[in-house]
């Protein structure tokens, strides 16, 4: 079971790998689309990589609810619990 800090750090690495954004830019209150300029195709790649990394399933219909990095961290933490 990963802590929220560990999930954030892991997610930041995935975002960096996909988009080249610095890991420090990936903060809890940042919106994936508005702040991080991540398009839907990159978002799906990030979701699938996060599923593999954290051993969770993020249903397609749930992805649209993950507006901020914090939303994704909470969802992954809950799914792991």
């Amino acid at each position, binding site marked *: 079971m990963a802590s929220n800090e560990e999930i954030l750090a892991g997610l930041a690495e995935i975002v960096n790998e996909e988009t*080249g954004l610095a890991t420090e830019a990936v903060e809890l209150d940042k919106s994936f689309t508005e702040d991080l300029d991540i398009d839907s*195709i990159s978002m*799906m*790649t990030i979701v*699938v990589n996060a*599923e*593999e990394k954290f051993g969770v399933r993020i249903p397609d219909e749930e992805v649209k609810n993950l507006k901020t990095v914090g939303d994704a961290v909470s969802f992954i933490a809950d799914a792991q619990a």
Partner: protein
Amino acid sequence: MARKVVITGLGATTPIGGDVPTMWNNALKGVSGARTLEDDWVAKYELPVHFAARASTPALDVLSRVEAKRMDPSTQFGVVAAREAWADSGITEVDHDRLAVAFATGIGGVWTLLDAWDTLREKGPRRVLPMTVPMLMPNGVAAAVSLDLGARAGAHTPVSACASGTEALHLGLDLIRSGKADVVVCGGAEAAIHPMPIAAFASMQALSRRNDDPEHASRPYDTGRDGFVMGEGAGALVIEAEEHALARGARIYGELAGTSVTADAYHITAPDPQGLGATRALKAAMFDGRIQPEEVVHVNAHATSTPVGDKPEYTALRAALGAHVDNVAVSATKSQMGHLLGASGAVEAVLTVLAVYERKAPVTINLENQDPEIPLDVVTKTARDLPAGNIVALSNSFGFGGHNAVIAVRSI
């Protein structure tokens, strides 16, 4: 009178150089880009061919990791060459609605397609990347170049196997002459050094099996030729309406004087043994450019080094140029870089333009015993000077499917 079209920018990434100056210097020296493949898949699949001519500069040395992630390797090469050609053209301002792309490929995103298939079988559908479709589609390279340069007058992808790159120039010339565009970025890209295409080309007996001596395997016109050598990379040319180039004071390499495309309608892979389709293509390109045979001083031949392919091209050249063919300096540059398939016509167009501009014909390597049935004046050992004054050079490309494409470049 048709608009005159000139060539103002060149780009290339090939097995004998990752940019145009390096490629050109090597083409004049005569080097081989073929090497033994070190990949573990050669032994794993027991491939009958163990070598190929890889691009000398990996695309990932030029592109950022993030931009490369969204491109098939063929598109990566295409974007590298197109950026070089664009920078070389010196264009700083352009009407983007009058800027088009005609960028070809023979096979398209074969690495992406087969990687995705492996992923599906090993990991399931969830792991197939969402970028798979735009990366594997054959128009992916034209689309990426259009996106990169902001070209909005259409992004086209001629696909005619190994004639594709030359057909891109044919299309580009038409786009400018017909007034649909003022500037076109033409080119071709290919990245098919993957075990499946190697197995498939080997299966049709098209590839050289000189596994113990890759550097001497591509030997057009030699009696010991036994097939082509797979190459990879891309070539790109910026062509523009002459008045557009003159208005901005551009450096002009030469005129894209004429082009043509014909089809054999003879056999799906075998060339017409009489070279009739190729003859019609040569004559049509010369007619298109108002070129007399006596003006032609150089031919960059298709000459892939297959036993059956090299001779019909000679037959066609003799039929189109008559006795003057004996005065023409012929270069078979696939001897150096292998066969870049859908990119070959574009890369050879770059070499043909430079031959006219620099007045030098590049070297054909590995020609030790010239096939007596192909008595062409082949440039071997050292590059040959071409005459001063008005000169014309031709470049031929032929593709499976019976496709024939020819371009004619005139000195300025």
